[in-house]
């Protein structure tokens, strides 16, 4: 984790946070939010 690039560290943190908050949310919506996280962090 420590050796990951800062943007990957942020992606991991935000994705896990999202999975925790929206554990019961339907999959397609969650996936598009994950893609948004990646896009936001890698520009």
């Amino acid at each position, binding site marked *: *984790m420590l050796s990951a690039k800062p943007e990957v560290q942020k992606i991991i943190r935000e994705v896990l946070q999202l999975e925790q908050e929206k*554990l019961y949310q339907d999959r397609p919506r969650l*996936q598009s939010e994950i893609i948004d996280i990646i*896009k936001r962090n890698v520009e």
Partner: protein
Amino acid sequence: MKLLRLKLKNFRQFYGESNIRFASGNRNITVIHGENGGGKTALLNAFKWVLYSEVTSGIQLKDQIVTKRAIYEAKSGDSVDAFVELEFEHDEKRYLIKRFVKATVGAEPQSTRTTEPEVTLHVSGSDGEWRSQDRVVDVIGRILPSDLHGYFFFDGERIEQIVKLAPEEQDQIAVASKKLLGVEILDRADKHLVIARKELEKQLKEVGDSHTRLLLEEKEVLDDEIDRIEHDLQECKDNIRTLDKHNAEIEDRLRQVEDVKALQERRDQLIDDLGKRKEALKEHLGSIKSLVSSSAFNIFLGGPIKRFEELCDKLRERGELPAGIKKQFVADLLEKGKCICNENLTAGSEHRHAVEKWLDKAGLVAVEEKVIRIGGSISQLSHELPQFLKQLDNHQRLRQTDLQEASRIETELEDISNQLKSSPKEEVASLERRRRELKETRDDLTMRKGELIAEIKKKNNRQEEIDSELSKQKANEERQRIAKARVDAAIDAKNRISKIRELMESDFRSDLQDRVSRLFQEISPTPYVVRISENYSLHLFDSDDVNALQTDGSTGERQILSLAFIGSIIDLTREYQKKGAALPGPDSSHFPMVMDSPFGALSIYRQAIAEHIPRLADQVIVMVSPSQWKGDVEREMIGRAGQQYALSYYTPKDIDEVITIDVNGKECSLIQKSPNDYEYTEILEVSHG
């Protein structure tokens, strides 16, 4: 999950309304006294039913929920409510879950119709307001996973079966333990990142150059193929499971045929032994691998060591070893221009020339130092080789013994199968023929499973190669560069999450093994140690030696092992959560344990288990008969008992005498004659605090 209160109405044999408040804190045990048939198991089922809509086996759920007395007393057309309501605290919130049915009484009690059970869940936060909560299954599952509930609400008389689980049930433990750890979140993130990566690759394909597009197209094809193979693999595993189930049914039927019962039981024993031998073979192979990887280099050192010794011998022959004189000393003499014999060392003189010759020899002091150092290491290495060979030999011998024994067992199993197949009883012969067919199909499927796993691995490797090629590709355009960087980030994040999960699981399993072993040894007088395999099955070994033999242990020992396992899961999950693991998991820092007759089949370990149970969980609800309670168990537990209740059972049958129990000087009837024609149980509070 801290249990506060249970309310029952017309549930099973509990007529009318009954309430139980649970003890917690320092005196965390709630004792519920009841005779056999008095309602202990029904009470255990009340917990299982309200939380998970399940009951212990042997009960037809829907039509037996409502107490018969309430139905018999109602008039035709009347409706009778039955429910279980449980109030508990969790994560600074209060929860009230209620599961209920309604029975409409028919002209005859037998024609009574009961509705499907319904459930409601209310949650109250810091403002004290109760709010209705949807997704009851999910919410309860996050507090105490359904797959694990059997370890927190259990029938103590069958507890030893926890360590004798079928493979699919072992998988369940693995899955449920992951939930407690929060690994489920990682699993989901892993899956979602794979899908996100595929989507981002599509976007890269749109903006990428021709080579990138080609590589991505190949990757897409591989993705589809992997999906298809994974689907086949799952199907293969399901089929193996179904075959195993059928096989177990056939063996069960053979066990019931008197003439061949003994043969089938011998086969059971042999299969068990064969499993242990195969497990031991795997372990020996593991030990050999680790020994070879750490010490096998010694074999190749023979040549270099010999060469080193030859070099040293030559130096000694030439008198260059030992060196005897230091270079600096000779240099100082030449500098001063005077020898130790007082002779002048003038330039070009014969004496100076003689002393100068010592300079070359004196240079060998450094060589001598190295010879001493290397010689020491070599002498140590020379000792390691015979030791390595001896250990290797030992493992090989044990492996050989296991191989021979496994082969002998297989021959005997074949022999048993032939005997059964040629049995004069057609039923037996046909069952055995069917069993053989199943075995052949299973063998084919197992082989297919191996092939599929290898295929997936191969395709995954190719995907990794493509990923590496893609990351080396130069992006010509900014759009392509960003799209590529996003794909790389998705792959990197996914791989790191997989690694975190792997490490967490293996740490958890190894910590769990240490803890179960320690707890088991604290309770049991045997020197056995516990090992937990990758699929979370528990095994007892006669020592912690690498060559230790697996043992079954007695029923009592298996009960201790099960309790140690449950206690350790609780303890460890609590500890992991306290550590504030960066990973989000269910907040389950407080665990209850509800046990029906945990001392039923115990004799010598009763006292030791009673002593340990209150420490295993934060809150203990124990249901006991007077014979299980009196004596050791009462002595060990009474000081921690915060609440005591009695299940007072009314029977329509004539009884010789009323059965009572004395709790803190208060006498309670546990079985008495019913004043009417109905059977029912009342719950009485007999001691508080």
